[in-house]
């Protein structure tokens, strides 16, 4: 037992460095991906097919192709098209794409939950479409999305573990690296699991509470 704790104690600093990188990649992907998701949510409803179709393709690929395959496509595939990205940039690009695709659907649903009479009221008051969006639809529709977006963010943190296939030194890569030196896989992956759970379980509980509170108000 002391052997296990000592081993955990030794590996923890390295794992934590990895975990910090996991959090950074996730945070950056969400910070870029969610605004992009909002843009896609709007262009998907646009009247112009020149906006709608490319958006639809972006979303369908981002949601339909496995995120692992997206990541490998960006890191291993794009160089042959002349675009070579570092493993960090590849991970952020792929996760951002995936985030935008999924959140576009979440945000679209949130915006559609705003009653139709609201935009009609804006219209008869003479507001233009951009003003209706800014003052009427977004302030009501976006808060509805928050719990779902947070739930999605937890899944993205978990998905960041896939960046180990492009050799990004995040938590999973660190665990794998120490494991291949010590061959003590079981305690290592157990500690890795505990680290993810230590963030994801409290976050899940908070999101659940938020969801219940929001549904009470509606």
């Amino acid at each position, binding site marked *: 037992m002391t052997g296990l704790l000592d081993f955990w104690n030794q590996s923890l600093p390295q794992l934590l460095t990895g975990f910090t990188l996991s959090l950074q990649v996730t945070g950056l992907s969400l910070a870029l991906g969610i605004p992009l998701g909002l843009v896609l949510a709007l262009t998907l409803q646009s009247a112009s097919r020149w906006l709608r179709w490319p958006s639809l393709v972006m979303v369908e*690929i981002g949601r339909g192709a*496995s995120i692992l395959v997206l990541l490998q496509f960006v890191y291993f595939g794009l160089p*042959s098209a002349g675009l070579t990205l570092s493993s960090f940039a590849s991970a952020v690009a792929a996760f951002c794409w995936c985030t935008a695709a999924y959140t576009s659907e979440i945000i679209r649903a949130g915006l559609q939950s705003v009653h139709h009479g609201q935009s009609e009221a804006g219209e008869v008051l003479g507001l233009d479409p951009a003003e209706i969006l800014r003052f009427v639809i977004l302030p009501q529709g976006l808060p509805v999305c928050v719990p779902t977006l947070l739930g999605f963010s937890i899944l993205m943190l978990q998905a960041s573990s896939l960046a180990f296939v492009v050799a990004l030194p995040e938590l999973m890569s660190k665990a794998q690296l120490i494991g291949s030196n010590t*061959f003590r*896989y079981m305690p290592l992956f157990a500690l890795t699991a505990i680290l993810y759970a230590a963030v*994801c379980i409290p976050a899940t509980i908070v999101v659940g509470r938020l969801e219940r509170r929001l549904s009470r108000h509606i």
Partner: protein
Amino acid sequence: MTAGFLAPILGGVIWTLALSAAALAVGMVLGALLCAMRVSGGAVLAALAAMLILIFRAVPPIVWLFLIYFGLGAGWLQIGAFEAAALGLGLITAANLAEIFRGALKAIHVGQWEAAQTLGLPQVSRLCDVIVPQMLRITLPSIVSYAIGLIKDTAIASTIGVPEIAFQASNVSQATFRGLESFAFAGLLYIGLSIPIAMASRRIDLRLRSKVAR
């Protein structure tokens, strides 16, 4: 230029489907069990089930796979890559399905239980004839959309060597240095696989609905 070099990736489809089916089967059985524990197992079992559901979902799939395949595999339990992947993905699926089942149970009106009871139906018949058919109708769309997500998640099993689509794509990419085509093809395959399933589910859903609609 011939696309023949992509052929091995097609060979991965069968493994992708097999793994998805296996994980779904594990998830259905365990999920039903977890759901039963949560709703009728008494306080201790219910808390245990809630905790398991939380834990299964809080750890990324790849960590489950490595934990089972490399962790358990290092001395505790010899297990093949396919079985490890089916079990690992099955655990997460179980947790998610348990919540879907529980939601459906809540959605079935109390009156249905009471009606079954007052008709004097035996316990088994109450469950199998009255409740489960209604649950099936309610949960089918969620299960199908979960299954479609699961197909994409099986790509993660490539990291422990299950020869499914992503694994084959990776191999082809390394052998031919044509990563762009390989992974693009793999991505399209995943999208292509989900389309017939979505269509079939819509048809079944319509049929189930037309039975109860008036």
